[in-house]
């Protein structure tokens, strides 16, 4: 069952002189079980789009089908709580929202809020923290004492603890150092591969999108410009130019090699597989 936007539009400041159509007749089916990236320039509507996924924003026109829920413009929604449990949204700079006295309590807040008994909520929190690789010795520490990367993993654990089926991450690696970014990337890959969660990532980091996301959606001025294979998008020079996207370094390298007469199959997408194929040709 895909996540299905049907002729969905959203208008900020509706009816005001400043009214602005942030999403304009969106038709989009996002697959379950894969990692999908949403990219596009600042102000293109990426965050507005993902905030519809757990009904933080409700459509002004059209509808959204997600899991067993159907959100239709103009209709009163009765299932917001279970929807928000099933679709976890990790905001940009989510670590700013940590507020509890201890790491464990902060992560347990989500399950408690969804009506889980305190003992069980703490158990779920501990499991989520284990999953994001936060050691038990940090459980009783104030979240403020952690590093930037650790804080963000704690914030993500708060969402994971509610056991959502779909996890949406808005700019999950922004502002982190390379090591912190790698930890977050490893985390969402493992959530996808091991726990089969559907992952949706909003990002400006084309290198990360190219390396780790199966599908990509390109938004521009509130409209879908592209939806399909990440590799096909980034290996197509015309599309990159048309959508004003920076070419990932590995693609630049691939293209240079091909321009110089080296043969590369479509499977050679990573540095390792490219080196492997070139190595064979040089033997």
């Amino acid at each position, binding site marked *: 069952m895909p996540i299905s936007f049907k002729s969905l539009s959203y208008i900020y400041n509706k009816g005001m002189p400043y009214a602005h159509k942030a999403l304009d007749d969106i038709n989009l089916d996002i697959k379950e079980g894969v990692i999908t990236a949403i990219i596009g320039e600042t102000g293109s509507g990426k965050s507005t789009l993902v905030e519809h996924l757990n009904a933080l924003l409700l459509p002004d026109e059209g509808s959204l089908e997600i899991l067993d829920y159907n959100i239709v413009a103009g209709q009163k929604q009765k299932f917001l709580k279970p929807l928000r449990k099933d679709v976890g949204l990790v905001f940009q700079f989510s670590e700013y929202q940590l507020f509890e006295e201890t790491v464990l309590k902060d992560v347990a807040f989500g399950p408690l809020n969804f009506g889980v008994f305190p003992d069980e909520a703490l158990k779920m929190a501990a499991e989520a923290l284990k999953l994001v690789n936060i050691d038990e010795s940090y459980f009783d520490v104030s979240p403020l004492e952690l590093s930037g990367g650790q804080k963000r993993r704690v914030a993500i654990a708060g969402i994971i603890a509610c056991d959502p089926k779909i996890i949406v991450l808005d700019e999950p690696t922004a502002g982190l150092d*390379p090591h912190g970014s790698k930890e977050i990337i490893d985390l969402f890959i493992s959530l996808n591969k091991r726990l089969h969660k559907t992952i949706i990532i909003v990002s400006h980091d084309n290198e990360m999108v190219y390396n780790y996301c199966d599908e990509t959606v390109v938004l521009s001025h509130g409209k879908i410009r592209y939806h399909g294979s990440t590799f096909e998008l980034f290996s197509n020079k015309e599309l990159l130019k048309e959508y004003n996207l920076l070419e990932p370094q590995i693609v630049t390298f691939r293209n240079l090699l091909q321009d110089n007469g080296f043969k590369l199959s479509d499977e050679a997408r990573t540095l390792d597989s490219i080196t492997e194929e070139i190595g064979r040709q040089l033997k």
Partner: protein
Amino acid sequence: MSLIEIKDVYYAYNEQNKAIDGVSFDIKQGDYVTIIGHNGSGKSTLAKLIAGLLPVKSGSITVGGLEVNEDNIAAIRTRLGIVFQNPDNQFIGSTVKDDIAFGLENRQIPSEQMEGIIREYSEKVGLSDYLEYEPQNLSGGQKQRVAIAGILAMKPDILIFDEATSMLDPKGKKEIKKLMYDLAAGDDITIISITHDIEEVLQSDDCVVLNKGKLFMHDKPEKVFADAEKLRKIDLDVPFVEQIREAFAKRKIKLKNDDLKGMVEQLCRYRSNH
């Protein structure tokens, strides 16, 4: 004498951890110096010590021959400006113009001079058409440029950028890096930039690598990046061309360090020689 002299500086936020642990190096007038290191390595602490936002526990920092301490800080601050990470946290005025004017008002610049100064520096950062804009209608990169214009209007000769591009989108990052490069082009302005961006490090004159509060390396950027093993040891990213060199070395194909095009040319030569 160097413009900034850092001598055996220590700083600790608490008793267990020394945030800066015996760091010494100099920065010459007009240099563009990048400081790298993973989170918690002491980069931001060091920048705050130079700016006098934190007091050194021992050792000394001098800026233009003046020791950074309570007596001299007012004099030092007149020549030093800081751009922080989050563009939303440093917008004070209700419009671009008001924001640039804020610092000038603090310095009691007569209002008839202000218009000219605001025009000059908004032009310098490429925002002269945006003077009446409100912050919420600006992109992250534009907000950072407003912050930079406000600082430049104070005519500092030392600029500190504390991860000023890390929260921006690729376009914003590019804008600010270009502006930093242009500002650094003359001999007048000295830039100290804390960053994770390898591309930015490569456009600087000098690179300081910090690890656990200690000076780990201090050299030209290309020299720093030539030692990939050393960088990996402290969890830092390795430039892409270096990753290529290593990947081929594993398959017994030896390449020299070069730019991407040069690497491909080497592979072509290798092909015709075998």
